């Protein structure tokens, strides 16, 4: 008995060394294999609103160009722009403009951003399907998220506290809504800050008193059908304007829908060959068709011209 246990004790370190060695080898294989395959790696990071769209664009692109590997991750527009400034990604997705402080920091670090608009998003205000309200004015949406209107009764709905869902401060959608709908006022501290668009949809589906804001691509499911359990509100620019839905293509393309915005990608300086080719794919009629299929909107003429200038 004693001898056996002794043997065991001696074996243990050997076994451990073996496992350590094996895992090291595995790690090395992992690290080396992409390089040995000679694929160009492009890191894309940022906006959570854009992550699904860019992921699908990247997949279709990689099917046609097996020589390039594109890795798309979310984290929020702020995270993406910080990554471009710090040089930890090749392409940043952002659903809002650069902030002045970010541009200053970028120039200070020698980063020269080039900005490309790849799609247009109609920011959608969503409520639970049981909510009888169909339309809100921009001012009402602002008041709701500033916490000034607290009960659905005020808006003609049932008596019940409005349950607010929003994004976190690293989100471009959070900043965009704050700037364009809340008129640069503070959000209510009661807003429950969720991790992404999908979580807001999930929460509003379950919460009969809920209201939230998401990129228009998120109101559709994988089959391109409108998601069940939510209702996308129509928005009026002001009390006397007609109402428009973000699901109405013509209204968005003619800029009648009040809260639409371009979705951007930024590079540091002139894009490398791999990045430039991917950008050209996104902006091609084929890429723009994917953009529309995913629920977002094609970019307009003025944006196309600007993109072409930046590609050069």
């Amino acid at each position, binding site marked *: 008995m004693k001898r056996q246990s002794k043997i065991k004790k001696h074996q243990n370190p050997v076994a451990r060394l073996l496992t350590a060695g094996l895992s090291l080898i595995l790690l090395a294989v992992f690290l080396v294999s992409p390089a040995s395959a000679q694929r160009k790696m492009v890191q894309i990071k940022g906006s959570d609103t854009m992550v699904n769209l860019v992921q699908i664009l990247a997949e279709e692109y990689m099917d046609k160009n097996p020589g390039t590997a594109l890795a798309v991750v979310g984290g929020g527009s*702020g995270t993406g722009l910080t990554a471009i*400034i710090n040089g930890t990604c090749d392409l940043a997705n952002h659903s809002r403009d650069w902030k002045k402080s970010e541009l200053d920091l970028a120039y200070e670090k020698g980063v020269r951003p080039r900005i490309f608009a790849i799609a247009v998003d109609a920011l959608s205000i969503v409520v639970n399907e049981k909510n009888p309200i169909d339309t809100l004015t921009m001012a009402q949406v602002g008041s709701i998220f500033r916490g000034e209107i607290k009960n659905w009764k005020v808006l003609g709905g049932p008596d019940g*506290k409005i349950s607010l869902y929003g994004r976190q401060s*690293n989100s471009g959608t959070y900043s965009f809504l704050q700037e364009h709908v809340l008129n640069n006022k503070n959000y209510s501290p009661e807003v*429950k800050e969720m991790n992404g668009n999908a979580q807001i949809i999930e929460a509003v589906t379950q919460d009969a008193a809920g209201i939230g804001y998401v990129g228009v691509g998120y109101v559709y499911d994988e089959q391109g059908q409108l998601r069940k359990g939510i209702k996308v509100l129509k928005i009026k620019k002001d009390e006397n304007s007609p109402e428009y839905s973000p699901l109405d293509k013509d209204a968005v393309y003619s800029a009648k829908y009040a809260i639409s915005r371009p979705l951007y990608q930024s590079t540091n300086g002139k894009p490398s060959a791999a990045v430039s080719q991917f950008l050209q794919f996104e902006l091609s009629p084929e890429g723009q068709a994917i953009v529309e299929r995913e629920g977002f909107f094609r970019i307009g003429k003025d944006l196309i011209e600007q993109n072409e200038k930046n590609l050069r």
Partner: protein
Amino acid sequence: MRSVKKKGILGDLRESFIHRLFQASGMLAILILAGILALLLYTSVPAFKEIGFKEFLTSTRWDPTSPEKPEYGFLSMLASTVMITIGAMIIAFPLGVAVASYLSDVASPRVREIVKPIVELLAAIPSVVVGFIGLNLVGPSLARIFNLSNGLNALNGSLLLAIMALPTIISISEDSLNAVPAAYSEASLALGANVWQTLIKVKIPAAASGIIASLMLGMGRAMGETMTVLMATGNARAFPHGFLQSVRTLTANIAIELGEVPFFSTHYYALFALGLVLFLITFFINLSADVILEKQKRKLQ
């Protein structure tokens, strides 16, 4: 036996080398701790300079990206952290001590062999999985029970943290119950007390300091937990007024904001100041748990 024979100059050298090595490892732990504290202090000083102690310590509003006026008050987050930690302990402590008592005094060896590993497995569940359960199961259930529109609130966080703190509380409580000399319970049983009386009147009082230490270590565990509360409590910034309200803890706030904050800005330093607060709280909780445990050891020896 062989090892004694082998001892010579070489053996001595080896022994002193190993001695040094272990000493260095011990010192390294202290050094790392001191280093973390120094780093936190160093990076939070600019925050206090730029924000001022008064705003940081007395304001309940935290909104660093506000276009109106950025404000950096940590009170709401401190209150949220304390609240859900206390809530978690109210749930987990009685339950944990009961399980520990059952395992140490009541359960048959076979049951113990099955239950103990299961309890320890609880600690192995990744916090993101616990958070997921909170988001999709505990939250909606709470909403139904309390007739709320949603279940993203402090109670949800407390329940999940209670589950996460249970393994700590159970295993340390059980250890300290087992450390009570057998003579204590033997004497009690010999005098005619039954198992329950022995447990309540003799063993738990004798192990009291260890059990309290388990509470404090469980608290430290709950307070530092991030992912679970981030997913389950809704992260609203308002000052908490009740357990059915959405709250944002110190840890969740750091996790949310550190990813996007521009380096070396006031906001960046302010997040480190929050980290310092969190560090000090958990440090003192763990320290007092250690002191209490040490006392019990001496008492029982």
